[in-house]
């Protein structure tokens, strides 16, 4: 697609809310210090990144922009250099929503930055490490390396429950683990299966992966790819008569399937989408889940997509507080004000460790690129801020609900010599079940 076509197709999707994001900013800069990438370089403050989209919008959609051009901050990308600058800006964002909650005018710069990713994708400039993965996800034909990671996780889960896994059966609860979990945190799949088995629920899971991290099209701005993958997931749950799709990954897949799916498919899914924290909290509140208590120094890290993006703030805390008298919140902000780990929305996949893991599984399909190497430096600044905050809390264990956060925090802890460890809540609770 040409640059002009890409821009016009993206601007066609401007609705009143995006129009407000595009037009309402007063350039006060208050969103700046809340962005995890601001500390890598001031130019990555949310408003400055989003301004790239405003330049384009003004030029294409306002009278003043068309007539007065750059005088009123209206311009289109002219050459490769401009597009590369836009791509750099677009990939210094984890879509964490913190800028949204801290803008006095309720402007979500991350949404405009995702529009930039759409343009970049439509002109064919998405970093190749992501495009390769997305194409694999859309095709549904997963290479052997990925399938063996999936099979290994399922084998471990089967051994853990000492019986057959309920694969591809009709059930009320359809557990949907993703390939990315099998790669980054296979223990989360194993421990979720153990929990579901122990709680004696009517559940099942797919024998083959439905997606890598649905939808990779979301994080790179490919709407068609997103739709294909969402449809596959909805069809699977429907055909297995699921009343609810259960997720253990509290990152983009949870927020997207829970809150964005109707916008993508044009209708609501005929089942609920729930995170395992919701299921456990409901059972705990109804007295169906008993938990033991001890004194481990533990904290909860709010995954952005679960807290700001998903509203699950109190639920995990109730569960963890029931297990430990030494629970403490993170010092710099929780829930709506929690600090992003710096790894979401594809960033950790493009960072060195993520690319190395994928290269091992996919062979030469994933090549390293200069772009990803530069991103790594900025990503590590954000990661360091997060692990420093966890260290300040004095917690020995940081519990969370998202595989990307676990991977990113543990990587940061190792890199910066921290003593604590990040685990998923399903893994943490294993020790507290009677």
């Amino acid at each position, binding site marked *: 697609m040409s640059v002009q076509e890409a821009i016009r197709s993206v601007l066609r999707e401007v609705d009143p809310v995006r129009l407000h994001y595009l037009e309402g900013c007063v*350039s006060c800069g208050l969103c700046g210090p809340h962005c995890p990438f601001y500390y890598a370089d001031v130019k990555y403050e949310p408003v400055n990144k989003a301004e790239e989209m405003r330049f384009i919008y003004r030029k294409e959609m306002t009278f003043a922009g068309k007539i007065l051009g750059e005088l009123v901050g209206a311009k289109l990308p002219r050459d490769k250099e401009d597009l590369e600058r836009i791509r750099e800006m677009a990939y210094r964002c984890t879509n964490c929503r913190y800028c949204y909650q801290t803008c006095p005018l*309720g402007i979500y710069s991350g949404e405009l930055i995702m529009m930039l990713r759409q343009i970049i994708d439509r002109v064919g400039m998405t970093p190749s490490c992501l495009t390769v993965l997305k194409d694999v996800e859309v095709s549904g034909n997963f290479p052997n390396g990925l399938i063996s990671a999936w099979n290994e996780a399922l084998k471990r889960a089967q051994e853990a429950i000492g019986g057959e896994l309920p694969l591809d059966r009709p059930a009320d609860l359809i557990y949907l683990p993703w390939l990315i979990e099998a790669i980054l945190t296979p223990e989360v799949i194993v421990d979720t299966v153990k929990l579901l088995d122990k709680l004696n629920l009517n559940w099942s899971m797919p024998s083959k992966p439905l997606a890598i991290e649905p939808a990779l099209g979301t994080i790179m701005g490919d709407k068609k790819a997103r739709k294909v993958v969402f449809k596959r997931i909805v069809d699977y749950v429907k055909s297995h008569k699921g009343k609810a799709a259960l997720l253990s990954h509290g990152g983009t897949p949870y927020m997207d399937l829970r809150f964005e799916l109707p916008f993508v498919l044009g209708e609501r899914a005929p089942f609920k989408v729930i995170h395992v924290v919701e299921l456990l909290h409901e059972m705990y509140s109804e007295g169906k889940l008993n938990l033991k208590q001890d004194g481990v120094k533990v904290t909860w890290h709010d995954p952005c997509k679960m807290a700001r993006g998903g509203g699950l703030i109190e639920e995990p805390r109730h569960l963890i507080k029931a297990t430990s008298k030494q629970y403490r919140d993170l010092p710099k902000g929780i829930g709506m004000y929690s600090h992003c780990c710096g790894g979401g929305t594809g960033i950790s996949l493009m960072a060195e460790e993520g690319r190395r893991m994928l290269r091992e599984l996919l062979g030469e399909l994933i090549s390293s690129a200069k772009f990803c190497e530069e991103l790594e430096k900025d990503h590590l600044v954000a990661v360091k801020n997060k692990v420093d905050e966890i260290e300040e809390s004095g917690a020995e264990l940081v519990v969370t609900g998202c595989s990307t956060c676990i991977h990113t925090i543990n990587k940061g802890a190792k890199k910066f010599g921290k003593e604590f460890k990040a685990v998923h809540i399903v893994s943490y609770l294993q020790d507290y079940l009677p």
Partner: protein
Amino acid sequence: MIYEFAVYDMFLPSIALFTFGLIYRLSRYAFTYRKTARPEWRKRPLARRAFLLIDSFIHAIIAAAKKSRVDFLVGLLVLHTLGVIPLLFLLSHHVAWWSYYFPPYQALSFLAIPTSATSSSLTVTAPLQPVSGMSFKFVNTIWGPLTVVLNGDVLAVLAIVATAFKLADRVVAKVKHRLQRVNWGDFSALILLLFILVTGYMATHHLPFGDVVTYKNVLGLHILSAELLVILLPFTKFFHFVFNFWFGKLHEVYDIWRRGL
């Protein structure tokens, strides 16, 4: 000449142009609206929702107070809360002005702020009854001794200093940090605001000279530049004051209610 032009010739055109701009801007919002399927709301208690409704209007301010202290002090507190908003809506001259065109505004006259500390005694001990066709006690305010600080002079100086600071801040952002988000629109909006504040202050104090002609010219410039702001309002960042702040915050409330924060 300038005064007559501003008061008698430009007032209605400026309101008409503002109305046109307002309709144009709002219609863009209406025309981009599309009906779509929406996700199921997460259930939360009503009390939580009520709290979030209020919290949404203040949490960004709290976040600014924690992480951007200077911007919070200068931009939000001094420029908005202490400066422009009370000056525009409550300075006694402005209360009279608003009331002339919109008589129910008189109801706010008990909140009117005097122009200077020296006139504060009037508000408590001797409320003035101006002799004119629209005469009412607009200086009979409730602020009492507080007017020693809560007066036009102090608030105008605060607003002028804060606006000048904001201008300097934008220069630093542009020159030192080379931030592309700072543009010509930012500078022109702040310069216009500064001009209105300075001419208002000068007119009140009959500066630079005490003769009637100069006074009327400076006051005329003050009114004319304010009318220019009114005309430009729907097309500039000043629109946040009329629309974007309210739309943004109400949408945010809707969004966090839906997600069940």
